[in-house]
């Protein structure tokens, strides 16, 4: 498991897929480095599974090439590619027992003594006892582990996971996320994981590519994507964002000063992905948990240098760890604010006049020509 080894790199160049007049994947360049845990995140129909299937060889790209390390595998059928897939809903062979399911790949490659390897692999996924059962006798979580074992035993250069946790209930899914992450760290194989669950992608992956309508919207580490989204889709699809329409006023040093609803907001220029000419329009974004809420009577206590917006509490829902407020403000109808339940201010009830304030460093700027609601519907699914 040398880190300098590049034989497990996946390099997609100019890869695309069209079905008749429908373009599932627009020409795409993507490099997944050896040993990384890479997630393709997006709503259903965004082209993430098609991309994965093109790496597996189950789908032929319309244009472009797929390379594994130095080898061009674009023309190779799936059975000649050194990659294995964990299929959505597992696709375990119903007529074979667990042992034979796991041994399938080894036997096809003509390996005679599979017993030791299969037993070790079943041990790794904690299914040693179940070796002689048929897939339908196992629970969903166990079947999922068999699917992982069946793929991993072949020591593929790349393991492809197609929504592997989609069929599991929430609790089991969280558990399997950690389990998969552990296995990936242990075996050091490149994982490419397709999911529509943004939390899953952020928990597990080193690098996440957010896909929308056949294109990669943004690619980066989970924290980068979350803290500094480049498009409204990413801002809304990954967690929740408050987006405020504003107009560029002046620049002062590294910051941009913007006018919004009669007030002023400050945005670090480095965190703005939109062109910032004076008088131009920009969407100012801030995550709900970065905002502090102070009752209007105490407005004087707010330190200088923070971005401020006034408003009235429209709704408050207590969810244990935090309280989620919806604020009606002149700059935006519905601003979301999440406040940790540390010291609750009894005056913060619906109808109360409040001031929202946050550190300008947490502000991000987006191009105002985009659909402000992109990515919202999909997240609700």
């Amino acid at each position, binding site marked *: 498991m040398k880190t300098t080894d590049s034989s497990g790199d996946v390099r997609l160049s100019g890869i695309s897929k069209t079905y008749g007049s429908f373009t599932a994947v627009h020409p795409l360049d993507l490099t997944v480095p050896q040993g990384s845990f890479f997630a393709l995140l997006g709503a259903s129909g965004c082209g993430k599974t098609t991309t994965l299937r093109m790496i597996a060889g*189950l789908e032929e790209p319309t244009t472009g090439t797929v390379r594994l390390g130095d080898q061009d595998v674009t023309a190779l*059928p*799936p*059975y000649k590619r050194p990659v294995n897939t964990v299929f959505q809903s597992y*696709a375990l*062979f*119903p007529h074979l027992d667990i042992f034979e399911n796991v041994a*399938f*790949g080894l036997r*096809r490659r003509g390996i005679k003594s599979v017993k030791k390897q299969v037993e070790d692999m079943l041990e790794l996924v904690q299914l040693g006892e179940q070796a002689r059962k048929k897939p339908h006798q196992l629970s969903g979580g166990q079947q999922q582990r068999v699917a992982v074992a069946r793929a991993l035993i072949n020591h593929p250069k790349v393991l492809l996971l197609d929504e592997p946790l989609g069929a599991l209930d929430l609790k089991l899914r969280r558990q399997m996320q950690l389990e998969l992450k552990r296995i990936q760290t242990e075996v050091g194989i490149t994982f490419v994981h397709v999911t529509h669950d943004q939390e899953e992608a952020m928990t597990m992956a080193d690098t996440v590519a957010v896909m929308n309508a056949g294109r990669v919207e943004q690619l980066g580490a989970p924290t980068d994507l979350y803290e500094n989204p480049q498009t409204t889709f990413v801002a809304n699809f990954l967690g929740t964002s408050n987006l405020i329409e504003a107009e560029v006023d002046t620049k002062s040093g590294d910051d941009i000063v913007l006018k919004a609803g009669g007030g002023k907001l400050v945005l670090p220029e480095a965190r703005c992905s939109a062109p910032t000419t004076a008088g131009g329009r920009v969407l100012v974004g801030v995550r709900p948990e970065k905002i502090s809420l102070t009752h209007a009577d105490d407005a004087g206590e707010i330190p200088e240098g923070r971005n401020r917006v006034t408003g009235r509490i429209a709704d408050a829902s207590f969810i244990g760890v935090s309280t989620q407020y919806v604020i009606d403000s002149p700059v935006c109808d519905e601003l979301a604010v999440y406040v940790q339940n540390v010291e609750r201010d009894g005056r913060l009830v619906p109808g109360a006049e409040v001031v929202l304030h946050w550190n300008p460093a947490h502000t991000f700027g987006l191009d105002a020509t985009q659909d402000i609601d992109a990515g919202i519907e999909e997240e609700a699914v």
Partner: protein
Amino acid sequence: MATLTEAPPPLTPTAPEKKPPRKRGRLTPYWLLLPGILWLIVFFALPMIYQASTSVQTGSLEAGYKVTWHFATYWDALSEYWPQFLRSIAYAASATVLCLLLGYPLAYLIAFRAGRWKNLVMILVIAPFFTSFLIRTLAWKTILADGGPVVGALNTLHVLDITGWLGWTAGDRVLATPMAVVCGLTYNFLPFMILPLYTSLERIDGRLHEAAGDLYARPWTTFRKVTFPLSMPGVVSGTLLTFIPAAGDYVNAELLGSTDTRMIGNVIQTQFLRILDYPTAAALSFILMAGILLMVTVYIRRSGTEDLV
């Protein structure tokens, strides 16, 4: 996991309340079964008992038959007609194998490759049923007629030399030979092979093929290790639906065969309707039934399809 399974106990005290509605519906399944059971009693069980008693009767048409528990009829029937029994099994088995060889690729094609032509091809498979069994068999008489194009072609290609050497055909003739009878059987029972094969192939999840390919299985290996084993229920029911009626068939041997290709069905038919030796005919029927039952049981045991889902 353990905590989950412990959940049910609190439910037990409320269970008695549920009982009354269940009691009312308890007889419903039997009422629903009644028409079917009556039908079976009148048209299956009673004739079977009647046949069984006939098979152990002795007497003559003029004096009338009496039950004398004369089991020797079975032995006599078997020792006289064993060649026809063996021939029936051989012909039926050949036809079944031919049906499987012809039907499997077709069923595979319909299930996986036909696309939008699927329904049309299915209709073509079933279409022969719209014509009478007899007419279809008679048509084969024309197809295989002496000096006809089929026989001519087979002759030119020297196929008849080979089949003649094997004893399947005689000289320049196909009609009135074992090959004609087996062809007729194959043709007539082919849809009974294709339909169950298609049903079980069509149920196979396409992702299993992808998974096999992903796990280094070439297309042919995928077929051998995944597709074929999963289609075993269809293979078993298809071969049974072909073999059982083919073994008892007499129309094909009657119309396409000769006295040398008589099957057990022809013997039974002659005994019943021409010679009017009812005990022998009944005994032959029971021997055939027992033989088929035995073979089918062994076959199902051996093929191990019980635990295929």
